């Protein structure tokens, strides 16, 4: 750009015409000043363009094709999207399972994480050790060991039913019953509360102690202190955790994949959206259709996130 508009002190607008050489040297100066920065960013930039943005754009293109991974893609227009909207009962089933999972797992997980964080925030000894122990389940993530462990817990002759039998209840095989299996996955998600807990803990530490002191001098009960001080001051952290966990829950794949062995069963009761997408892409060779499914998920997550941000102005308090 060779022309630059400038407002002079008296308010008149003048247009200066730079000479090419001047602009060039200016660009060079800028480059010289920032080149090391870009150099350091390079690995990330390569990753972002090569592994995230590039494939995402390609998948957008593929979502309008009948790509089957083995032959070259043929353009089908919006046929994939039309089919998803009008003629795919499995899409509806997967959507229902995923929404159930999001609606149950996120609030329970956040509540649990907050409770544990508050328990750990009372200046107990050996805090780093407890923190590490409570974080451990999150690290185990989606390993096959979890699938085995969950079966030991929630199968018909598992630990949970053994405990229930003590009080005279004979439970079903929770993990393989279509009415309950999704809730064993919710339990798995709640159990892996480590990362929101760490963030809550950091947030709790930010709350000035003198507020509590003042409140207890005024005779406020613990509950009232929690309700009037902790919760409002923690809302930015809660908001952050809620957004991150909601997005994560929509994208959840491994729990259902390992526990149902990739089938999403019994009777599609654990057919997470991403699992269905995976089955279509890699099991049934419908990469084009799966790409369309993926983009619909992107839009749904975007809508949920936008909604969270819009609602945040009514309940999130930033103390500035």
């Amino acid at each position: 750009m060779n022309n630059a508009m400038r407002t002079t002190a008296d308010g008149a607008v003048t247009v200066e015409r730079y000479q090419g050489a001047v602009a060039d040297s200016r660009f060079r100066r800028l480059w010289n000043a920032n080149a090391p920065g870009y150099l350091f960013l390079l690995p990330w930039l390569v990753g972002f363009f090569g592994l995230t943005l590039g494939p995402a754009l390609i998948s957008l293109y593929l979502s309008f094709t009948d790509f089957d991974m083995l032959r070259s893609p043929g353009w089908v227009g919006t046929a994939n999207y039309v089919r998803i909207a009008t003629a795919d009962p499995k899409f509806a089933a997967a959507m229902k399972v995923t929404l159930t999972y999001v609606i149950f797992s996120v609030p329970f997980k956040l509540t649990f994480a907050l409770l544990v964080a508050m328990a750990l925030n009372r200046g107990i000894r050996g805090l780093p050790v407890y923190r590490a122990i409570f974080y451990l389940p999150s690290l185990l993530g989606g390993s096959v060991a979890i699938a085995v462990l969950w079966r030991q817990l929630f199968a018909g002759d598992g630990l949970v039913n053994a405990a229930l039998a003590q009080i005279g209840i004979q439970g079903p095989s929770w993990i393989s019953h279509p009415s309950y299996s999704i809730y064993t996955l919710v339990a798995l998600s709640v159990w892996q509360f480590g990362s929101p807990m760490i963030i809550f803990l950091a947030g709790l530490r930010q709350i000035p102690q003198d507020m509590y002191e003042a409140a207890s001098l005024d005779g406020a009960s613990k509950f009232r202190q929690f309700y009037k001080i902790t919760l409002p001051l923690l809302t930015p952290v809660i908001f952050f955790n809620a957004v991150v966990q909601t997005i994560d829950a929509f994208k959840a794949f491994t729990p259902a994949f390992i526990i149902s062995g990739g089938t999403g069963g019994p009777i599609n009761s654990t057919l997470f959206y991403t699992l269905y997408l995976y089955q279509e892409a890699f099991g049934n060779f419908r990469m084009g259709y799966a790409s369309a499914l993926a983009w619909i998920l992107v839009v749904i997550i975007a809508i949920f996130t936008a909604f969270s941000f819009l609602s945040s102005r009514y309940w999130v308090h930033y103390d500035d």
Partner: protein
Amino acid sequence: MTFSINRRGFMAGGASLLALSGMGVPAFAEDARLRLIWWGSQPRADRTNKVSDLYKTKNPGVSITGEFLGWGDYWPRLATQVAGKNAPDVIQMDYRYIVEYAGRGALAPLESYMPSKLNLDDFDQAQVEGGSVNGHLYGVSLGANSAATVLNTTVFQESGIDLPTQATTWDEFGKMAAELTKAGKRRGMFGTADGSGNEPLFENYLRQRGKALYTADGKIAFGVEEASEWFDMWNKFRESGACVPADVQALDKNDIDTNTVTLGKSAAGYAHSNQFVAYQQMNKDKLALTNYMRVAKDSKGGHYRKPSMFFSVSAQSKVLDQAVDYVNFFVKNPDAAALLDVERGIPESKAMRDVVATKLDAVGKIPLEYVGGLGDLAGKLPPPPPSGAGEATDVLRNISEQVGFAQLTPADGGKQLVDEITRILARG
């Protein structure tokens, strides 16, 4: 002192590097690099790698890299590699997927190499035919197996119930299984697994009734009547306690580890003969193999000898000749056969079968004798399943669960099964 390099120096260095690498090409032109991929466990990998080593000593200058994954991870990986034009030269292929891959041009036709470079003369010709799609040979069978019932003989004995024989019908077996459950020798153990969602078992039932899963041109080959009666039979087994309840069956992920026999939930389960050795390794009780039950006393031909897996050669391979030679070595070299044993199924080549038979232990002999002794229970190999068959398998499982959990009646289940499979096959 600092090291610096100017632009000219850099260019010169780069050019000489390029030249060097260019020079390297003619010197190694005769070398071939073979890449293999297969699914399976570590023992299979050990056997396969030993065969590769043997091949390398006989063919100096050939290098071989093998890659193996579990069944579930294998297919996504293979599809991704093929789509990325990076397919391995030799690909282990399954009967269920060979039509998908061959039909999409991913596999090289091999018939032009026969018989000089690929000699399958002493193969059972029906099994060779099993690797053909539209008249071209796309896969060389690595072994034969057949679907089979796995029986926990210890539990049958404890309960004082005779083992089923080749003459046992489903009705009789249902009664035996219900008795075994009632005998209650093992806590939480039922007579049999719930096989209503098991595709090979359903196929066997259909074949005995003169039907099949698919026609040769890829259409559905059974009707609502058979499907409904199938679900109804299993509903009765469920009611009488002969088979495990639906929520126990749903634990089965269609592998050896989670089969109800391995989990100690049933005394009979449904599997494939080549899996027997692995089943016996995972069970303390003594196991045996028998056929799938008869629909009626005189019904036959439900079973068939099936190529358990193939080696195919990628159409993208740059070393086609070498890859074909490796496959030929794999199925025809006696030393290779001795290393491979019956782990991938019973060798198709008669000469190799003889090599292996002399070396088998008691457990290894069971599948060999079982497949050899099927008699009139075995019929013709059906045509390879059409595109979409994988999805149809999932539908059978899904609907069988809906019937099992009493969300559908057997009659509605049968109707829905036929409807959905018809729709999937039409979509392709």
